[in-house]
């Protein structure tokens, strides 16, 4: 399955965040979103996930238009933003069993790809930032979606844990999955394509009725 964006644009109010974004993600490949801070990397990922509306352009999955299709996205995409989607007062075990229950799939405690075993009985607010991020990434291996949309997945992870993340990413790709990742860290994987965003604001506010 190939995910393709055809001249995507996003608006916030009258402000144009970006426009003319073209890319294509083939199965088993990884695409990095590059650009300076404030160029709209998070916005692009949220737009791909379906949290923001597309102002212009098309998003297709194998030639099928999914720009406004909520169901297909829910089925194929997994979005992980800056926040970890974890409840502060629950233990890691409760959190994981909730995901298992809702997706009817299991986390592989045998191999334990994100090394959550030692912190299973800790509550989330007792965990460090990096431990929380590890639990959040563990969800990726539970939900088993085709496309991962990850925003700074390795933020606050140390080198050892970045290696863990790299291995689940490689696993995911070898199973025919693909990922769109916005990151500043060097994960050590060579992307098959890049999306470059620039900080060009010249096209800003072209439709403002007040000017």
């Amino acid at each position, binding site marked *: 399955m190939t995910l393709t964006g055809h001249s995507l644009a996003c608006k916030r*109010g*009258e402000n144009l965040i970006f426009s003319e974004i073209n890319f294509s993600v083939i199965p088993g490949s990884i695409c990095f979103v590059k650009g300076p801070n404030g160029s709209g990397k998070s916005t692009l990922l949220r737009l791909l996930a379906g949290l923001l509306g597309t102002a212009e352009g098309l998003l297709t999955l194998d030639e099928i238009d999914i720009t406004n299709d909520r169901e297909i996205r829910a089925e194929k995409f997994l979005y992980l933003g800056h926040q970890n989607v974890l409840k502060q007062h629950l233990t890691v075990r409760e959190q994981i069993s909730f995901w298992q229950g809702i997706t009817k799939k299991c986390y592989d405690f045998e191999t334990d790809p994100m090394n959550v075993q030692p912190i299973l009985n800790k509550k989330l607010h007792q965990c460090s930032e990096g431990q929380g991020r590890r639990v959040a990434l563990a969800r990726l291996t539970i939900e088993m979606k085709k496309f991962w949309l990850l925003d700074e997945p390795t933020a606050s992870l140390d080198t050892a844990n970045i290696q863990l993340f790299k291995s689940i990413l490689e696993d995911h790709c070898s199973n025919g999955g693909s990922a769109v990742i916005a990151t500043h860290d060097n994960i050590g994987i060579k992307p098959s394509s890049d999306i470059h965003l620039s900080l060009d604001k010249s096209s*800003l*506010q072209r439709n*403002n*009725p*007040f*000017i």
Partner: protein
Amino acid sequence: MHKNSRSLWEFANPKRFVSIANKLIPWLTICTVLSMSVGIFWGVFFTPNDYRQGAAVKIIYIHVPSAFLAINIYIMMLIASVIWLIRRHHVSLLAAKAAAPIGLTMTLVAILTGAIWGKPIWGTYWAWDPRMTSFAILLMFYIGYISIWSAMEYNEKVGDLSALLCIIGSIFALLSRYAVIFWNQGLHQGASMSLDKEENISNVFYLPLLVCLLGFVSLFFTLLLIRTRTEIRIKRTTSLLRMN
């Protein structure tokens, strides 16, 4: 929209709105000053006293128009909010925002004059009669609407939220009103301004009251135009500044 199309939506263009408002404001001001002074002078000095209430009836010339405006301004805000939600015209949203403080003032005027009037006639400043309760409810929803604008910075999101708040407010204001009416039928007299005026209020009071009403309505429109123009200018200033 086509440049030469003649429709109501022309006002939706902020620039056009400002230029039309600039032309209208002086005329409306004259209309307001004239009709308000004529109406109030006529009413206060050249009408006889009511046979039951005596001279106290003269308060009617501010009480009824302000109460009329208080309710209708909320309805106007409701319509403007719906227009914003459906057609996304900024002027409509800004007009709703601009109208709210006027509505609040009118509600306060209606409550104040009503209380002062009520003391000699009913023997109390305030009674929890359904109509007075309705105004108390209206006051609360005006305050809620204004507070959402004052608490957040202007953007489309806040515009949507305030428009939704206005709609939700009117649903719950109506519900509360009928909940109150269910439990007590009050001492307020019926509407003074209904179509069959003969029943409610005699001609002597009715004509000056109409002139006062005209005065208050044009006062509202003058203030509304000035305030909306101000809001548009604020928006324009911030947009220009952000372009740099």
